[in-house]
């Protein structure tokens, strides 16, 4: 498996920090998914070998934790919180409008791989709902009228014309 050199460096730096090698499996899965966009069978075997584990020990984590994916996520990962605090202030309406604006049903990845649009369970920002997490950027108090703006930002990110909120 071909990983970027910075991913390999990060992996080699990370493993010796832990008193027991196996503890590094979650961070390695994060790094490999960050590098490849998903966790392939090859990725599972590579991590297992690196940490002296059986592949099943890695595979059973990939199938358990919702964040790890065996299919490629879209270039931009959009998560709309659907849990009660956000729902009480209109999260489902926001989600529907966003799906419409992006022309992509919820819980699917756009066929061209541009983005994945999903419901998320509580994002722990209940006081400023509805919230939408676009990659690492959190959009708060998103009303239906804000949806087009968020959709435009997502599309601009897909086209590489917008940096993350922090650096913009």
């Amino acid at each position, binding site marked *: 498996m071909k990983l970027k050199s910075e991913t390999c460096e990060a992996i080699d730096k990370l493993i010796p920090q832990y008193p027991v090698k196996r503890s590094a499996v*979650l961070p390695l899965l994060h790094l490999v998914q960050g590098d490849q966009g998903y966790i392939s069978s090859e990725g599972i075997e590579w991590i297992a070998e690196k940490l002296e584990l059986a592949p099943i020990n890695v595979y059973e984590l990939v199938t358990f934790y919702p964040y790890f994916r065996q299919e490629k996520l879209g270039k931009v990962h959009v998560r709309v919180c659907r849990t009660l605090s956000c729902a009480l202030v209109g999260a489902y309406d926001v989600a529907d409008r966003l799906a419409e604006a992006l022309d992509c049903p919820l819980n699917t990845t756009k066929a061209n791989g541009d983005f994945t649009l999903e419901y998320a369970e509580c994002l722990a920002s209940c006081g400023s*709902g509805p919230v939408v997490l676009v990659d690492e950027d959190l959009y708060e108090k998103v009303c239906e009228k804000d949806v087009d703006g968020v959709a435009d930002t997502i599309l601009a990110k897909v086209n590489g014309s917008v940096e993350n909120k922090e650096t913009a």
Partner: protein
Amino acid sequence: MPAEERRIILKHVDDPEYTVDLDCYLRHGGYAALKQALAMKPEEIRSEVEASGLRGRGGAGFPCGMKWKFVDRRSGKPIYLICNADESEPGSFKDRKIIHSDPHQLIEGMMISAYANDCVLAFIYIREEFPKGARILEKAIAEAREQGFVGDDMGGSGYGCNIIVHRGAGAYICGEETALIESLEGKRPYPRIKPPFYPATLGLYHCPTIVNNVETLCNVCHIVAMGGEAYAKIGRPNNSGTRIWCLSGHVQRPGLYEVEKVTIGEMINELCGGMRPGRQLKAVIPGGGTMKILRADERFQGKLPDGTEFDWAIDDIPLDFDGVAAAGSQSGSAGMMVLDDTTDIPEALANINAFYAHESCGQCTPCREGSLWVKQITQRMCSGGARKEDVDLLLSIAGEVGGRTICPFGFSITWPVESYIGKFREEFEAKADQAENENGNGEHRLIER
């Protein structure tokens, strides 16, 4: 006198000049408590924390000093400290604020706690959905290490401890401390069978381990700074310290409120500016999604532990561990959701049930199956397919989950179903006679269709 906040933990977070940089933290008196602590003996710090009466802010309210006392110090094994930053209980968002706005306060609290318990290594287990938070913490730890507040030979004391930031991957169950430990060991996060009851005797890598919540660890800084006895005087007896309440739902000003002694009425009507115009309070979920709902027009009667009789309206309930417990619910992780009269209660239950069905780890059959069944039934009830027998069916399933599982997650199935139906039965029964409109009967749709 109108109710006021008393900000200790959140003192600086809303100051626009306040940043996450070490320099800023030092300018505001940061790491003075750590220096003070390093001049004390570890057992002296432990007795200050015990004297403070500090109760864990993660959910169960277990006394921190006692948790620390349970640590097996004679095993000869290394002792670990874990900060539980897996904040995932619906309604709770206080740890997010501390991590993103005042990371050094958490690091300082951790290093004092690590020194007090002779820990060799500390971890922050942070949920995946806080990617920026994880980076802020990593940067802050690196800065603190450079200045000798973290790492080898802290402040010339000869004591050293490092912190590793460990990211989760989207599983609510990792907030349960033994599941968190399994996750940190690189396994599926299945909660461990008890006994042993406390990781303090058998925790990470089968070594004594302390697991404390973010807010709990921040409090340790202030206990050292002001002394355990002075800290114990804040708040009501047995509920010492301030508490950060997370207000969400239908109030005018949702957000974080750090308070000492206020009631539910003062919180909603004064601090949060009341309900939205023209709306009435219908119900409060006081301590996060798991906790039992309180109905606005019920009376809460009984006897307090000290023998005093009480007869409260919802507004009179004191917002602390014992007050909310006396009213029949729990303050949990202080995630307080306020529901007004536009809320469809069966849909609210269906929403909560969907959360716990998604998050059940699947280890125990009653929870794995029960969480899905109650989700499916409430979902069907709210989608035009309610049957007369559904209410009793829900109660019969929910009653078989809590207390029959390895971890307390089972109560997250039982308590919402039993309390929402117990207090709003007529709304559930009415579902069988109603043809629902597209949005249910509430202002907003609360479930997936």
